[in-house]
C-alpha cells in the first residue's frame, strides 16, 4: 500500500492541506498577495510615503496626478499618495483592533451560549436580537454619537456593533460541534468541561471564526470609513473616509481627491473578501473529497 509512506511524514498535514487548497484558488491567491502588500504598506508607511501626511505646500495645491505627486495634491497642497499610505495604517489599525475586540467578546459569549444552552443561551440570544434589530451601521452611528467624535470612539462603536454577528456565528457552530459524537466520546473518557471546550469544541469551530473574522475586517474598514465620512472620526488624521468627505466639495474640478482614497478602501476590502472567500472554500469539509 502506498499510503503508509506519505502518512508518517505528515504530522501537520491539515494545515498544509488547507494551504494547498487555498493556493489552488487563483482569486484567493490574488487576495492574499494584495493583503500582504497592504499590510506591508501600513507597516512601512514612513518609508514609502514621500512626504509627511500633514505636510502642506501652498505652492502646489489641487495638483493632478504627476510624477512628483502620483495621486496629486489636495486643497492644502498635501500629497494625497502619502496621505493614502498613512491612511492604510489608520484604517487597518481601527479595523483590526475593533475586530479583535468584537471577536474576543463574541466568541466567548457565543461559545457560552452554545455550549451551556438553557437560560444563559436565551438571555444572550435575546440580547443579540435586540442589538440586531438596529441596523449595524445605524448602531455604530448612534454609539459613536454617544461617545463623541474620534477614532477611538469609532473603533469602540464598530467593535460593539459587530459583537452580535460574531456571537451568532460562534453559537451556531458550537451547537453543531457540541452534538458530534466525539464530544460525547470525550465525556466518556472523563475529560473536564474546560478540556472539552479547549481541545474538542474550539479547534472545530475555528474555521468559521477565521472566515467570519477575515470578512469582518473588511466590513470594519467600510464602517470606519463611513463613520469618518459622516464626521464621526478625527478630521486631523488622514483617514480614507474623512479624506473623501473633505474632498466632496471639489468633486467637479478635482475628482482625483475622491477617487484615490476610495480606491484604497475598495482594494483593501476586496483583498480581504477574496481571501476570506478562498479560506471558506479551503476550510469547507464538504470539498475535502
Amino acid at each position: 500500500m502506498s499510503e503508509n509512506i506519505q502518512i508518517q511524514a505528515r504530522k501537520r498535514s491539515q494545515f498544509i492541506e488547507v494551504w494547498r487548497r487555498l493556493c489552488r484558488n487563483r482569486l484567493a491567491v490574488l487576495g492574499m498577495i494584495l493583503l500582504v502588500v497592504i499590510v506591508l504598506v501600513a507597516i512601512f508607511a514612513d518609508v514609502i510615503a514621500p512626504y509627511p501626511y500633514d505636510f502642506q505646500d501652498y505652492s502646489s495645491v489641487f495638483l493632478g496626478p504627476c510624477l512628483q505627486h502620483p495621486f496629486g495634491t489636495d486643497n492644502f497642497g498635501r500629497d494625497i499618495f502619502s496621505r493614502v499610505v498613512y491612511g492604510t495604517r489608520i484604517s487597518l489599525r481601527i479595523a483590526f483592533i475593533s475586530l479583535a475586540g468584537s471577536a474576543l467578546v463574541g466568541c466567548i459569549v457565543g461559545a457560552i451560549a452554545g455550549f451551556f444552552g438553557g437560560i444563559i443561551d436565551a438571555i444572550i440570544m435575546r440580547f443579540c436580537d435586540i442589538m440586531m434589530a438596529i441596523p449595524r451601521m445605524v448602531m455604530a452611528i448612534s454609539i459613536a454619537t454617544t461617545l463623541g467624535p474620534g477614532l477611538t470612539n469609532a473603533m469602540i462603536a464598530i467593535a460593539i456593533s459587530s459583537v452580535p454577528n460574531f456571537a451568532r456565528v460562534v453559537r451556531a457552530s458550537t451547537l453543531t460541534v457540541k452534538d458530534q459524537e466525539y464530544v460525547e466520546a470525550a465525556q466518556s473518557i472523563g475529560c473536564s468541561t474546560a478540556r472539552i471546550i479547549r481541545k474538542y469544541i474550539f479547534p472545530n469551530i475555528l474555521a468559521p471564526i477565521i472566515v467570519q473574522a477575515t470578512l469582518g475586517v473588511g466590513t470594519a474598514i467600510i464602517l470606519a470609513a463611513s463613520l469618518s465620512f459622516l464626521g464621526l472620526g478625527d478630521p486631523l488624521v488622514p483617514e480614507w473616509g474623512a479624506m473623501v468627505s473633505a474632498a466632496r466639495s471639489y468633486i467637479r474640478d478635482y475628482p482625483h481627491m475622491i477617487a484615490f482614497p476610495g480606491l484604497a478602501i475598495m482594494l483593501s476590502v476586496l483583498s480581504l473578501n477574496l481571501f476570506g472567500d478562498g479560506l471558506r472554500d479551503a476550510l469547507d469539509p464538504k470539498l475535502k473529497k
Partner: protein
Amino acid sequence: MEELIQVKNLKKYFDTPRGKLHAVDDLSFTISHGQTLGVVGESGCGKSTLGRVIIRLLDPTDGTVLFEGKDITRSKDIKSLRRNLQMIFQDPYSSLNPRMSVSEIISEPLIVHHLCRGSAEIEARTRQLMDTVGLASRFINAYPHEMDGGRRQRIGIARALALNPKFIVCDEPVSALDVSIQAQILNLMQDLQESMGFTYMFITHNLSVVKHISTDIMVMYLGMMVEKCPADELFERTLHPYSKALLAAIPEPTLKKDRQAKLLRGEIVSPIEPKPGCRFAARCEFAGPACFERTPDLEEVLPGHYVACHRVNEINQL
C-alpha cells in the same frame, strides 16, 4: 456468577414540546462478569439512551444502576467511574475529533487520568494499544479523515481500552461498516473479550450480529423491555410477538422459497406520554382488550426467559 451491573427500575424521560418522551421506562436487569448482553430494537426504542444512562453519560430520571454492588447513579465522582465504564460509539466518522491525530486520540484518556508518567511512557502505551486493536504503528500520526471506517472504529476501540475498563457499552459499533470490515471488527471485539475479560453491552438493530456476539439478548420496544433470555433461546423459542415479527423480518442470505413472513403492520412511533397498556398493542395481531388497558409486567415464563406480554401463554401454547 458475580453480577457486574445491576439495573433497577431505571427510567429516563426527556422533555419535548409535546410532552415527556419515555426513552427508557422502568427497566431492571443484570449483567454478569465476562458476559455480553445484546440489546436489540428499532430506531427510537431507547436502546442507545439506555447504554448512555448506565455509564452516566446521561443522568437517569429515576432508578439505580449498581456497578460491582455500588450505586453509581448518585455518584459525584464521575471521572473515576470512567475508568471502569467505557463506550464504543456508532459512527466511526463523527466519534473521532477531526483535529486530533490517532496518537492524540488514543492517548487522551491516559493524559486525562494521569495514567502514565512522561511522554515516552504515553507513546509506548499508545503503540501497545494500537497493536492490540490491530492498527499498524505507521498510522500513529495520521488523522482520522485519512483512514477508512474499519480503521477508525479500531481507533475508537483503542480509546475505550486505554483505561482498562471492566464494562464497555458498544453502541452499534459495526452498523456503519461494510460486511467484510464488520466481520473484522466483530472478531476483534470477541478476541479482546476473551483475552481481557471485558463485559459488553452490545446495542444493535442487527439480529444476526447480536446473536453472533451475545450471551444474553434483550429486545426493546418503545422504551420497554419485551423479552430477555439467553441468545440461542431467543432464536429457538421466540415468545413475544414483537420479537417474532422482528426475526421474521430479517432477510436471510440463504435460498429458501417457503418464506411465509408475517409482516408487522404500521411503524414505530415515539413514546411521548404513552398511555397505559402494552406499547406494542397497536401493531400486535394478538392484541386483546387487556393489552390496551394494563402495561404487562416482565415475567419469567420459562427458566431464564423473561417476557412482558399478557397473552404469552396463549400465543405460544405454553
